[in-house]
């Protein structure tokens, strides 16, 4: 079973994402911000991180940069999932090493397609 860490400060988004991901046979863990996500990755590295951009404490981009600094041999795939839908943000995410990008709102087919593209579904 593949694992996904859902990182979003919105409880509703985490709940929706969990519902979809569990339907796709993922083991799901949750974090409310980048720092919590980083702590979670220190304990157990998921196969993929579904990552919001704007969060308190530590943003999605800050998390990604910190994760890159860890030089993990089994770095998780990073799928941004955000309302930051402008081309500048998307390019910045790709440049920082994001593997995919989901523009909110999203549905099951969109998320499943993106997870297939990064090779975890």
């Amino acid at each position: 079973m593949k694992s996904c860490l859902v990182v979003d400060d919105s409880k509703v988004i985490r709940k929706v994402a969990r519902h979809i991901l569990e339907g796709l046979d993922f083991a799901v863990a949750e974090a409310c911000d980048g720092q919590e996500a980083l702590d979670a990755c220190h304990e157990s590295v998921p196969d993929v991180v579904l990552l919001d951009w704007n969060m308190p404490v530590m943003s999605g981009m800050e998390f990604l940069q910190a994760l890159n600094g860890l030089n993990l041999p089994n770095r998780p795939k990073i799928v941004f999932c955000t309302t930051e839908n402008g081309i500048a943000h998307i390019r910045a995410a790709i440049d920082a090493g994001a593997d995919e990008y989901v523009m909110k709102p999203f549905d099951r087919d969109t998320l499943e397609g993106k997870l297939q593209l990064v090779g975890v579904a």
Partner: protein
Amino acid sequence: MTPGDNEGACRILVGLLEARTGQALAPDRIWRIETALKPVMRNHAIDTLDSLVAKLASEGNRGLVDEVIDALLNNESYFFRDHIVFDELNDRVFEDLRVSNAATRTMSVWMAGCSTGQEAYSIAMMLADAPHKWRGWTIRLVATDISHSAIVKAQSGLYTQFEIQRGLSVTRMVRWFDQEGSDWRIKEELRNRVDFYQHSLLSQAPPAGPFDVILCRNVLLYFAKAVRTEVFSRLHSVLARNGVLGLGAGETILGQTEDFVPSGTYRGLYRRADAPAARARPIAAAK
């Protein structure tokens, strides 16, 4: 709407769709007729399906008939739908065509029933992503659909945020599309590579072939069996002798036609039954 409501009107509309397009509306989709037609009815200030049918029956309503047909057609599509088929085309079929067509440096692909263009642009993107392979080649990409509105949208190359995310990687999205507000438009360079036009598989002669590849995906499932057999015959008539045919994931040739057989060379694709059995690497040897 319950099945009993507007039954007569629904029957007429189903008959109209079948007569004009050959598409048979599955029983489980008939309940959606009223929902699908609501925007058309609203635009023409028509209250009920019965009134719509009455208006269709009156003379001089060709435009309304076209709008109704368009609304009833299923134009759902997305980029790289069933990526296994696209991988097979990209990794093997096109590679073999580079060898077999090296003398003429030409390749033709027909997307029959291209809907709103996503699959046609998927092919165009695959080829454009490997410019070194196709330098000096003349590649003809023809994409047709019976729906006028689908072709207009395909030609515009403009997709909503929802549509652009269906099957398309973010790297291809930023490489081949420009953002326009919340929508995304295909770059002119790619748009110009595909020749889109309205065409009926049933009532019009196919585009001039021969085509090395024909994709007719998720189209035939809407046709009655006899119509499918006829369409297969038409596809066969313009497929190159060594060409391949691609169908949708839920579609098959079995019991439908004797014009095609499984490729034997390429996974999930078909070849002409009257063509040589294999011209390229067998599947097992390709890996």
